Every structure is written in structure tokens, then in C-alpha cells.
């Protein structure tokens, strides 16, 4: 701590803060620094980075606003918070696009240097929101952030533009004072990241921001958030994409296989490729393909060659990979396919979150082409789901689809690290044994339980055989146009997927065993859980069931659903899971939908629960 705060410190269980500025203002850096510092201080936390698709939209415009919201808490939390209580806005566009999220009477720290007529014009504002009543009801703290930063970094001889670039660290200094955070983590970050004179300038800007907040009359108090009482163990802060990459590496290492990752860059999945490209010493190879189709096909070729092929993409890329996935289903080769969902259709909202690819994941290929589909529910769960994908793909010999989304991919939370030695190893179907000694090799002869075929890798003497996308004769794998055989093979491929229900966890609802059941999947976990917790505190009979396995479903799912009077299914789509539940189990699942590129708020789900309970009387 850089000296003792002179003003009173108020203890809080949780606070939510939002940094917003131009996409060139470094708000993502500011947010990540605040996150890591809070994580190291022992808080539970959840983050929501929210940035534009354009790398640098015209400066000062609403389109270019980049935000980072974080909730830190001394208790277990599941979401980045419904409404921030502090908004740090670097310009008018950042102010007006984020003000609506601020809670009533919240605090706005504004860089008033960026409120000239020209700045207002860029943000398409007819009048100054600081004077025209827009910010009425909020506590507005005007700070000459640009000027103060310029003065603070004056000794280091930076140009005007370069000086201005230090202002995110000035803002971070204010936030660190406000929440009584330590500088150490960020100081090390600056030292590692910048060369002189930028290193000294950024350090000076952060210190100046802190000093300014300390001496400023307008900030009446600072806040302290005690460390959370988390489950004992070792933690790190992790984003979904990073957790996923580590899970994929762990899975292939535990299977003793090489990981081949074929991918074509696409937002918001590219970070998986970036992470894996750094892990080559873990027997990981990455192939940046010429397109999405080649990414999937190269992974299939690699699996044919004895590695575990994987590919990751987002919605538009998944549409392109469809035919290749059919080939993996037909040739029964293991493959892991990751879809980090974003707003669709078409190019849609590349940097925003959505869950509208469930249909294409489960059904989106030509022919009867079943694939297991699993979905992560929190950033750290991406590790477990990636490991699960490897396990399932190697067990049943075929492609497994993993769904995450932009919110999970870029959001972060503390991750209770698993004990490496207690992670089980994963068996594969690799074989060099002839399965019909004295007779013809049977490359499509199936394991009795899983119905998986053997995995025979080219190079194995005596087991030469041919595979391909044409229909296979049972057992021999020879091309067959026989009608009865085709029907038999269609059923076998379906039964292979269905058989996985025997090796996945049963569905288990959290909360009451009667009343209202809220069923979710994917990144809505946090909002649903918190809404259900709050409703139960208010005495309502509510439960939460979160599905991680979407195809096949847990085998007791129908039975669990039928225990409840009402079933609500919140989804960031127009009801794709609810339609599957209705079709499979004939339950009156009621869909709650939101497709705004933003996650559900706890209050939105709570309102739906209350509404259903009220109707029940």
C-alpha cells in the first residue's frame, strides 16, 4: 500500500466496477490489471470484457467504446455483477453507452478533458451529458484525467500522444485507491512490459492517480473487500479460452497422444490457438490452416495419422466445417471440435456473446449425423469440459463438439487448481493387433459396450485398409450401397453416441426437489445460480439444473424434469434447448430468451422465477 488512506474505509462484501473508454485507451489492460490484483488479494471475482469488433473504430465514437466490468467479492459469486456502482468513463461515448448499466446513485468518474464540442460531436451528442441532466441522480466526479496524466509524466520527455496513452494507468491508480488495492502486481507488469521512458511514465501516472484520489475532496471514502472464503486450495485467475487450451493439453497428455490443433483465426476463438502455439513442449502442434474447412480436415488427417486432431472456431466457421464433421462421423475418427459461440447469424456480432449454435451443433450436418455435444458453464469449467471432450472422443471414436461462448472465452474467475496426479489417464482405441487373425481385417468391428471401432494408424504392418466418406459395410468397412446395411449403420452411429449416456454424470438439480426448475446450459450458469439462490432465500421452492452434456442428455434427465411443476429454460437464443427438452421429454418447458449480445442479469432470471411462482399462486 502506498501510504495510509486518510479517508474512512468502508468494508463491503462485493463491489462492481466498470472501466470504459475508447478501444485505443487501454481499458482491457486496465481491467485485467485490476482483476489480477484482486485475484491475488484473495477475492472471488468474475469479469466481463466488452469490446467492439473493430480494432480501432474512429476515436471517440460510440462504436469504438471498449469496456471491462468486474465484480470482486469476499463471498462466492457467479457473475460479473448486474449493475456496476462505479463507472470510470474516459470520454462522452463511453459515458453514454455505459451509464444505463450503472446502479441508481452510482458513482461516475469522468475524464472531463474529453468533453470538448469536438468530442461530443464524435459521440453524436447534441448537448453535453454532464450538463443536460443525463447524469442526474448519479455521483459525478469530474477529473481532468488527460491534463493530470500529462503533468505527471512531463519529466519523462514523452510526446503529447504518448503522454496521453498513460492515462489508463492514472485511472487504474484512482481505482486502486478507491478499493484499497496493492500496486505490486501492476508494477511488475509495467516493468516487464515497457521500456524506458514508458516504464517510468506509466508508473508515475499510476502513482499520480492514486495520489490524486487520496487528496481529492470529492471521494468521501474508499472501500475494502476482504478476501473471499474460498474452498482451500491453490487458485489462479483464468479466462475460458486459456482454461480450455490447458484442458486440451492435459487430456492429450493423459492419453499419451500428440495434440494436433488445426485452426483458422476467428473471434472469439483465436486465443485458443495462441495459447496452444506456446505449449509445443507438451507435444502440441498447431497448424494455422488456409480456411476453416482445411482446419477441420487437417485435424481429421492428423487423427487418421494417430494424433488427436482438434479444431476450434466460432459460428460462421462451424457452418463451414459441417461437411468435414460428417466425414469424421462416417470414418469414426476421434476429433475435438470447439465452437466459441458469438452473436449470429452470418458475421453477426463477432465480439458479443450468444448461445444460438446449439441447433447447428446437435443437428447441423447432412444426413443422420449424430455428434456428442458438451458445454462449459464457467470460465474455469472450460478446463474440465475440454478434458471431458478428449475422454469422450477417444472412448467412442468420433468427433465431439464443445460449446463455449464469447462471455466464457474472455471472462475470468479464480480457478481452484486440480491435483495433476489425481487426474485419471485416458485410454484410447489405438491398436496394432489384427482383430480377425487368419481372416480379413475388420476395421469397423465394434467394441461391445461403446460400439467404438479400433483405431489403426497407417504405418502399422499387416493392417492396411481403406476408409472414406462412402457408406461402410458393417465390420469390413468396404464400400456398401446395400439398403439394409445402410439402415443398420445409421442406427449404429446413433447408438454409439447414445451409449455415452452410460458414462456421463447423472443430472442433479441444486435446491428444492419440487416447485420451479430452472434449466440452463453454458455461460448462463452464474446468473441462474445467483437468481435461484436469492429466490430460495425469499422462501420460494426453486431449483437449478445446469446441463453440461447436451447430446446425449444424462439418462435420468426426463425423470428429474418431471419432478417439478414448472420448468423455465433461460437461453441466449430463441429457445433451442427448451425445444429439445419439449421434443424429447414432452415437458412444458417455458423459454426465457435474451439475444442482446450480453449475458443475462441475475435480476432478469429472478423476475422470470417470480413471475412463474406468482402465476402458480
Amino acid at each position: 500500500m502506498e501510504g495510509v488512506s486518510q479517508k474512512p474505509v468502508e468494508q463491503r462484501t462485493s463491489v462492481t466496477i466498470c472501466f470504459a473508454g475508447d478501444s485505443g485507451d487501454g481499458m482491457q489492460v486496465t481491467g485485467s490489471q485490476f482483476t489480477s490484483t484482486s485475484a491475488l488479494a484473495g477475492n472471488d471475482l468474475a469479469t466481463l470484457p466488452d469490446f467492439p469488433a473493430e480494432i480501432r473504430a474512429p476515436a471517440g465514437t460510440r462504436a469504438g467504446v471498449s469496456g471491462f466490468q468486474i465484480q470482486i467479492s469476499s463471498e462466492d459469486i457467479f457473475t460479473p455483477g448486474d449493475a456496476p456502482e462505479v463507472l470510470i468513463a474516459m470520454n462522452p461515448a463511453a459515458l453514454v453507452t455505459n451509464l444505463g448499466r450503472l446502479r441508481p446513485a452510482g458513482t461516475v468518474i469522468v475524464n472531463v478533458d474529453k468533453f470538448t464540442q469536438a468530442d461530443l460531436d464524435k459521440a453524436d451528442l447534441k448537448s453535453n451529458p454532464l450538463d443536460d441532466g443525463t447524469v442526474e441522480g448519479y455521483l459525478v466526479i469530474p477529473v481532468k484525467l488527460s491534463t493530470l496524466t500529462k503533468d505527471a509524466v512531463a519529466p519523462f520527455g514523452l510526446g503529447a500522444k504518448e503522454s496521453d496513452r498513460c492515462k489508463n494507468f492514472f485511472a487504474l491508480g484512482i481505482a486502486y485507491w478507491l478499493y484499497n488495492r496493492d500496486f505490486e502486481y501492476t508494477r511488475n507488469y509495467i516493468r516487464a512490459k515497457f521500456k524506458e521512458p514508458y516504464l517510468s511514465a506509466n508508473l508515475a501516472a499510476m502513482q499520480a492517480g492514486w495520489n490524486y484520489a487520496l487528496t481529492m475532496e470529492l471521494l468521501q471514502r474508499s472501500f475494502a473487500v476482504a478476501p473471499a472464503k474460498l474452498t482451500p486450495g491453490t487458485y489462479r485467475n483464468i479466462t475460458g479460452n486459456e482454461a480450455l487450451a490447458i484442458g486440451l493439453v492435459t487430456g492429450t497428455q493423459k492419453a499419451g497422444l500428440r495434440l494436433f490443433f488445426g485452426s483458422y483465426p476467428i473471434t472469439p476463438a483465436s486465443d485458443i490457438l495462441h495459447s496452444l502455439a506456446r505449449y509445443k513442449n507438451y507435444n502440441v502442434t498447431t497448424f494455422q490452416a488456409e480456411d476453416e474447412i482445411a482446419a477441420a480436415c487437417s485435424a481429421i488427417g492428423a487423427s487418421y495419422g494417430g494424433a488427436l486432431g482438434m479444431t476450434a472456431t466460432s459460428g460462421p466457421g462451424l457452418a463451414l466445417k459441417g461437411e468435414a464433421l460428417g466425414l469424421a462421423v462416417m470414418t469414426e475418427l476421434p476429433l475435438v471440435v470447439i465452437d466459441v459461440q458469438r452473436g449470429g447469424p452470418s458475421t453477426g456480432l463477432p465480439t458479443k456473446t450468444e448461445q444460438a449454435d446449439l441447433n447447428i451443433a446437435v443437428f447441423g450436418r447432412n444426413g443422420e449425423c449424430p455428434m456428442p455435444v458438451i458445454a462449459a458453464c464457467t470460465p474455469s469449467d472450460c478446463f474440465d469440459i475440454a478434458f471431458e471432450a478428449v475422454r469422450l472422443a477417444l472412448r467412442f471414436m468420433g468427433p465431439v463438439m464443445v460449446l463455449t461462448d464469447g462471455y466464457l472465452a474472455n471472462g475470468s474467475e479464480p480457478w481452484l487448481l486440480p491435483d495433476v496426479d489425481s487426474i485419471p489417464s485416458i485410454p484410447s482405441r489405438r491398436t496394432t493387433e489384427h482383430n480377425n487373425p487368419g481372416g480379413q481385417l475388420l476395421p469397423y468391428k465394434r467394441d461391445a459396450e461403446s460400439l467404438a471401432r479400433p483405431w489403426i494408424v497407417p504405418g502399422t504392418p499387416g493392417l492396411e485398409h481403406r476408409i472414406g466418406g462412402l457408406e461402410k459395410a458393417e465390420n469390413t468397412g468396404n464400400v456398401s450401397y446395400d439398403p439394409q446395411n445402410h439402415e443398420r449403420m445409421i442406427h449404429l452411429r446413433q447408438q454409439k453416441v447414445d451409449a455415452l449416456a452410460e458414462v456421463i454424470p447423472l443430472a442433479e438439480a441444486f435446491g428444492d426437489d419440487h416447485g420451479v426448475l430452472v434449466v440452463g446450459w453454458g455461460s448462463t450458469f452464474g446468473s441462474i445460480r445467483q437468481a435461484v439462490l436469492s429466490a430460495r432465500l425469499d422462501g420460494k421452492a426453486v431449483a437449478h439444473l445446469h446441463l453440461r452434456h447436451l447430446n446425449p442428455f444424462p439418462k435420468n434427465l426426463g425423470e428429474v424434469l418431471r419432478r417439478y411443476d414448472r420448468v423455465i429454460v433461460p437461453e441466449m437464443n430463441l429457445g433451442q434447448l427448451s425445444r429439445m427438452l419439449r421434443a424429447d421429454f414432452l415437458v412444458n418447458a417455458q423459454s426465457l430468451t435474451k439475444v442482446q449480445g450480453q449475458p443475462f442479469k441475475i435480476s432478469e432470471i429472478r423476475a422470470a422465477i417470480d413471475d412463474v411462482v406468482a402465476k402458480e399462486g
Partner: protein
Amino acid sequence: MSHPTESPMGLEAPVTEDPPQLTKKDFMSDQTIRWCPGCGDYSILSQTQTVLAELGLPREQVAIVSGIGCSSRFPYYMNTYGFHTIHGRAPAVATGLKCVNPDLSVWMITGDGDALSIGGNHFIHLLRRNVDLQILLFNNRIYGLTKGQYSPTSEVGKKTKSTPMGSVDHPFDPVQLALGAGATFIARSADVLVKELRDVLKAAYYHKGSSFVEIYQNCNIFNDLAFEDLVARKVRDDRLIFLEHGKPMTFGVKDAPKGIRLHNLQLEVIDLASGEFTEADCIVHDKHNPLLVGMLARMQPPHFPVPMGVLYETLRPCYEEGFNQQVTDAVEKQGPGDLKKLIHGSQSWTVK
């Protein structure tokens, strides 16, 4: 695997410990061949089986990867490993396979529609990466399996089921396309040129890198005799020129020998019978010279003979070598991966 004999590009001589002597028959699968009777594919299949046996390749070390089309049924007829993939995507599948299993001898079978139309993107990227495999493009200038539409190598004006008034598309020249895409080995042959085709396939095998072979192939059902005016026994000596590295470029029937000379920075056909020119005036084929290959690739009938044999060869690092070297380097530099380190990262903390 190591190459059994010394390659023209100076690759290392093989270490062969008396490999079992396989015959052509060993490379024939038990599946009934379903190409139309009289199809040029039969000859290409037969020459390939012969060549693989002559090269002394163990069957398990050979993987045939194909796309979709008549030619792409090829793997089913080879008693080796084989993968009949999807339309146009064989280059991507073969790349993944070769990257993780670099000891395999990978042969990619494709056609003019598969490689140059639906798979055009993968085709050029395979060549630029220079993955060490052989690409056999069966060019019949027509879509056969879909029953007779024009292809990206069909000539302008081609009348087909989909172009009753004639095609208005300008065709690709596969050799020029391969050259532009950075291919390190480019050769051409034809289904009926039995001996020459075998020689070219062997040369392709010996080349380290992506070896591209365009093979003129007759589709006797939908585009019969498409190459007849070039490859027919009666005319081929005059309409084709068989290139040999380091030899002067001569061609023509016995009584009317001709040659190619470089004159005013252009190739031209010279008459070697009249006494005005001799073989010494002919340009010597240098397969390592990309400028010369550029000119050879543009030689078109009726003014020029069509070049056959190995047009171009150069050496460049293969993709899969660099790809796998990075894993070796990473292990050397950072040590073998330690999962605990990976999971813990650099910023973890403990809650008691």
C-alpha cells in the same frame, strides 16, 4: 522412410535391408474396380502399382489420400492404407496426416474439378507449404462422376450438359498454376504414355517436397479423345516434347526432327532437317530454371509441342519438417512439458 535410390536432387542414398520383394499384385486390393471400361484411370492405377513395387515400398508405409470424383476412388483399389475424403479437401487431410506421421509415403489422388475447382484453395496452399507428398492430378477436362459438366480445365466454348451453348470460362493451366503457387516439382504425363508415366511417378517419389504431376487422362464416356490429337501414337512424337534435364530439346517424327531454341527471349520451334539448324542450336532443358519453366509451361499447340516429363524441380524446406522441428526445439529449450507447471501458471495463490 528413406528413399531407396539416389535422387536426381542429391538426396541421400537409401539404406535398404533386403526389403521383401513385393510385386505389382501385392498392391492390388480385393475390391472390384468400378471405373467405366476403357477409362484412362485403369492405366494410371496399374502404373502406380507397378512403380510402388519397383520402388520397394512396404505396403504399410504407403497412404493414398483422395478427394471426390472418379479418380478419387483410387485408394479403394490399392492394397495400402487409403483415405477417400471429401470433395477438394484431400490436400488438408493429407497435410494433417503427413505432419503427424512424416515417415509415411503419402500419395494424393485428385482430378481437375477436385483440385482446381472446389479444392483450389487447398491445392495452392499445399504447394506453397511444400508438404512432402506426391500429387497425381488426373486431368480429363470434364466432370465425369456428375455425368458430364465442363471443368476448370475445359476449353472455352466446350459444349456440355451444363453449357449447351458452350462454356464461356477461361480454363486453368494446372502446370502454370502450380508454378505460380510455388510448387517445387512439376511434371506432366498421360495415361497412355506407360513408360514415361512410370518414370515421372518415380521422379515424383524421389523429390523431397510436394511433387505435382498432371496426368492427361481420357474420359471415354463424357470427353472421349480429349487428348487424342496430342497423345495418339501417330502424332505424339510431333505434338509432344519429352523433356530430359541436361539434354537439348528435340522432338518430331523420324524424318522431320525439330527442336526448340531460345531466340530474342522467346522460345521457337526450329527445323532440324533442313540443315539450317542442328541440335547445338537447341536450348538445353534445365529443370532448375524457373524462368525457362515459365516459358515451357506456356507452350501451346498448334505452334508448339506440349512438354512432358519433369518440367521443374527445386529444393525448399518441407512444411512437416519445420512443423515437427518446433516441437523438438521447444522441448530442448523449455524441457518436456510439466502439467503441474502448465496448470499453475505464473500467478497462483493458496487459500488455507
